[in-house]
């Protein structure tokens, strides 16, 4: 069974540019989560999708971040415009019912210069 995949693995952009991160969950997993680790701090929850609906987006830092999950399959996380403090590693996770066992992807390392 394929795990959670994320693309790209690493992205380097300039401040003010736009970047879109993609996450493909494990097939059949309705729940999809985004987390991020910035500036060597702890990994923090960003938001949770159930199928195509946003269940909880309380962790989204500001309106420069937009997450979508059209069709309830893969998800994208767009940062527009990117700021220096957005640099970090963005993780995606998926789960079946309940969400208590979340399977994490390898992450996308975002560097904003």
């Amino acid at each position, binding site marked *: 069974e394929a795990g959670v995949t*994320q693309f790209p*693995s690493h992205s380097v952009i300039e401040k003010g540019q736009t970047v879109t991160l993609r996450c493909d969950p494990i097939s059949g997993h309705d729940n999809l*989560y985004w*987390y991020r*680790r910035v500036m060597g*701090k*702890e*990994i*923090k*929850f960003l938001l*949770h999708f*159930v199928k195509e609906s946003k*269940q*909880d987006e*309380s*962790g989204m830092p500001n309106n420069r971040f937009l997450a979508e999950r059209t069709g309830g399959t893969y998800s994208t996380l767009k940062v527009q415009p990117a700021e220096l403090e957005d640099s970090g*590693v963005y*993780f995606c*996770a998926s*789960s079946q019912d*309940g*969400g*208590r*066992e*979340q*399977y*994490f*992807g*390898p*992450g996308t*390392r975002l560097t904003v210069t």
Partner: protein
Amino acid sequence: SQQGEEDPQALSIQEGENATMNCSYKTSINNLQWYRQNSGRGLVHLILIRSNEREKHSGRLRVTLDTSKKSSSLLITASRAADTASYFCATDGYRTSGTYKYIFGTGTRLKVLA
């Protein structure tokens, strides 16, 4: 202290030695997981231990869980230079609005010297 806090924050050992990292949490849990992250790269799942388990082994890894003390430990035996990484514990934390938010600590930075 926050949920999922690891101790120590940094650990430096010689290759071949054992490394022990601890994690404390606050709320009741269903399971606790340990992850490794190498140099800002991806998160690698190491081991999951459920709340009704006390100890679990996987290769050179040994995890213990004490729910009465709300703590867990990760032991890496016969460490190797390749074990150099940051290690995080994550708990399934609380549920709000139908969401389980994994709570991660700040991690333990392990450095294994060759």
